[in-house]
């Protein structure tokens, strides 16, 4: 099997290049990493990409930017705010079709990259600040974005569980900050913060696809991305302690109650038992063959969804389910019971093998998507443990039953959050 690997260009840029002709499109991503400090900084970090995308020096408004992107055969440009461990990551992505599939000749990649650079590095400035109108409007839209979390009850429950569980840690800060701090942010302050990011934040540049060598070789001449440290995490505090389980209940008019249970694993990507955690997660709740899905949904029809997920920079595991409120104690009991069963080694050889195969299958499929390749590489880079997908697969293959038992024993239930109806 061919392994698709990112190669690091050893020079003043943190350029990670994965060369492949597998895809119809080429992908370029620019990352900036900022430590999660407080809600105000988090909100500023989230606000900056939106203000930049409103208009740049050469493309004054969003209509011009979108028009240019359409001219470039519907190239996609987007920005995202990610939270990995106790860091915020700003991602600017650009994806365009590979010129070779076009019937007309085009300099698509170069033109699109110039546009992206103009937006990130040449903002539209008025009186040495961002254009006031864009600043004001995007602040209002960020406010709406933060408030709209309530529209998605799944994410609402997840975020409310995590913010309560990590209330004394930086991780408890929402990735977009909070509405209450927005009033404190001035345009000048935001612009100064932007310059600080451009000059000082950790940064990285990813390329995935079939780029002409002339483009890659000259890329440094065509970007104002400055030299700096790569996006390695040095901030995250991994909390792993014995404590009483906290229980929170929130009332809201809903048709379905949502239950989120947070655990501490103490395991991050850097540690050897990371691979065991992957297999454990698959066994307990990562898929449809998992214990929780089988027990809570298939056997007892208590839920439509019940699943677990892991955060491997901070060392967390979360179990989520949508249920009838009156069943919440029963479901919590079943969750405890299933984890205890795994800790006691009470799982079959078939279940063990399915869990491994399922992870390996998903990892292999990541090789077929430019965005998955990049997401996998991002996590390994952040955790300062660069490995290819095949190396991760080898790690998973080597996991034993005993390894899973020891992960199950390590798990500490921390916080239970229940969203349910008022009546």
């Amino acid at each position, binding site marked *: *099997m*061919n392994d698709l690997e990112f190669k690091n260009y050893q020079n003043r840029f943190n350029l990670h290049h994965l060369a492949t002709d*597998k*895809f*119809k*499109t080429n992908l370029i991503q620019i990352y900036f990493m900022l430590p999660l400090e407080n809600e105000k900084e988090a909100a500023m970090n989230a606000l900056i990409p939106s203000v930049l995308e409103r208009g740049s020096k050469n493309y004054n*408004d969003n*209509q011009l930017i*979108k*028009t240019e*992107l*359409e*001219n*470039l*055969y*519907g190239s996609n440009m987007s920005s995202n705010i990610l939270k990995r461990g106790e860091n915020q990551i700003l991602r600017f992505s650009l994806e*365009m*079709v590979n010129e070779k*599939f*076009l*019937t007309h000749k085009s300099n698509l990649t170069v033109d699109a990259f110039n546009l992206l650079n103009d937006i990130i590095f040449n903002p539209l400035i008025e009186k040495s600040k961002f254009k006031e109108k864009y600043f004001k*409007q995007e602040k*209002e*839209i960020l406010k*709406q974005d933060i*408030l*709209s*979390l*309530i*529209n998605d*009850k799944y994410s609402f429950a997840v975020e409310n569980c995590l913010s309560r569980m990590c209330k004394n840690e930086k991780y408890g800060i929402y990735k977009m900050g909070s509405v209450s701090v927005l009033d404190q942010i001035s345009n000048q302050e935001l612009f100064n913060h932007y310059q600080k990011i451009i000059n000082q934040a950790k940064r990285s540049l990813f390329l995935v696809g079939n780029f002409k060598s002339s483009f890659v070789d000259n890329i440094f001449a065509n970007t104002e991305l400055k030299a700096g440290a790569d996006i390695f995490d040095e901030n995250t505090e991994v909390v792993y302690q014995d404590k009483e389980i906290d229980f929170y209940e929130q009332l809201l*008019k*809903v*048709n*379905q109650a949502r239950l989120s249970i947070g655990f501490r694993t103490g395991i991050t990507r850097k540690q050897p038992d990371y691979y065991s955690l992957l297999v454990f997660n698959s066994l307990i709740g990562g*898929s*449809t*063959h998992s214990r929780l*899905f*089988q027990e809570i*949904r*298939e056997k007892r*029809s*208590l*839920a*439509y*969804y019940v699943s677990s997920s892991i955060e491997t920079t901070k060392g967390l595991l979360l179990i989520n389910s*949508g*249920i009838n409120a009156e069943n919440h104690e029963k479901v919590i009991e079943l969750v405890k019971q299933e984890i205890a069963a795994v800790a006691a080694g009470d799982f079959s050889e*078939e279940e063990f093998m399915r869990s491994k*195969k*399922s992870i*390996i*299958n998903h990892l*292999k*499929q990541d*090789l*077929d*998507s*430019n965005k998955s390749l990049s997401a996998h590489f991002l996590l390994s880079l952040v955790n300062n443990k660069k490995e290819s997908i095949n190396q991760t697969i080898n790690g998973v293959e080597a996991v034993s039953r005993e390894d899973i038992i020891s992960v199950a024993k390590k798990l500490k239930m921390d916080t239970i959050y229940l969203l349910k109806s008022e009546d």
Partner: protein
Amino acid sequence: MESIYNKNMDETLVKAKLDNGLNIYIFPKKDYVKQYAMLSVDFGSNDIDFIDVKNGRRRNMPLGIAHFLEHQLFEDKEESIFDKFADLGASANAYTNFDSTNYLFSSSSNFEDSLINLIEFVQEPYFSDENVKKEKGIIVQEIKMYQDNPYWKSYFNLLSALYSEHPVKNDIAGTEESVMSITPEDLYICYYNFYLPSNMDLILIGDLDPQRIINLIRGNQARKHFPHFKNPVRIIKEEPEKVAKKLVKEKMNISRPMVQIAFKDPVKNEEPTQIIKKEYIVNLLLDIVFGRSSKNYNQLYDQGIIDNSFSCTYHKKPDYAYVHLHGESNKPDQMRRKIKEKLVDIDHDEISENFQRIKRKYQGSFIRLFNNFNHLAAEFINYRRLGIDIFELAAIIENIDLEELIAYSDKIFNKDLMVESIILNED
């Protein structure tokens, strides 16, 4: 077996039809690790009223039965179907929409065994009182989950305003009451009416040897007996031209009001190519008039009336069609008024000026389609059911004329056929 190579896209499509009527479509993808299979049954949530192929009786099924049947086929006498796939390192899933039920898996090894698993579980129904009862609990939770989703809620409110007879107005999963009324017998009736090989398409994508795979399926199907039923006759009650309701309002716990607007587009008998072409023409038109690069979008964005939650699409099927615009806004009444104003008075020059560029965007998105297996399979079957192979889309897009856009721009946004669905904040 027929093989079509598309030089521009450097993609091949292999087609075969078995004696029992099952259609097989394969996209061989050299050097890809992922393998993807989808068995699509031409039976969706709209198919609740039909003439039984066995006895000629008219059947009126409970709402949500196609979706219930999808869930129920994952039940087996002994082992869990999910586990069977998991043992092979494959992961299975399924989804039901208005016009089809789709069973699928993705794998990176053991493709042939997984494929046989897929065919076997879909072609071997097992519905018991006990299993049906158990599944009701799960599906009721699924329905409740969607009831808390404001977009879904207001979307179906919108459809129920557009249509008074057409079944597309009903939620795909049905209602709590309709689901609770479903019996194993109902499921068997739908099963033998719609789950015939001649009513199914199998789409396979990956680094596969088409001849070998087709032989494998042919061997499997030859060992099975299927009754020689013709495909069932579906009854879609005649839909009046006018809309059912002009406005539906509801309150939910949300951050700000949600506005959805639709224009009903009454259907005539049209050729498949015409249907697809019209779908593209009106979508291009919408992009010019209300897309991200449009004057209207940017004006209203500037005025704080809409933001990037806004989007617009034209949905076109042989038996129903409508223009759909939606977004969140703190100024819902202004948003409604402005959209109406802009759409009834479209500037023809604006269409001419932007036409070529927007067309390019669609050419780009056609190329992208081949990047993602799941997306490719879903789009492929969508067009295949209309009688068009996906490669033909390139020419359909290429052949769109400016005049056609201009002609539709005066007709399609008919105020009398407009409906609105609004979700307001709970007090």
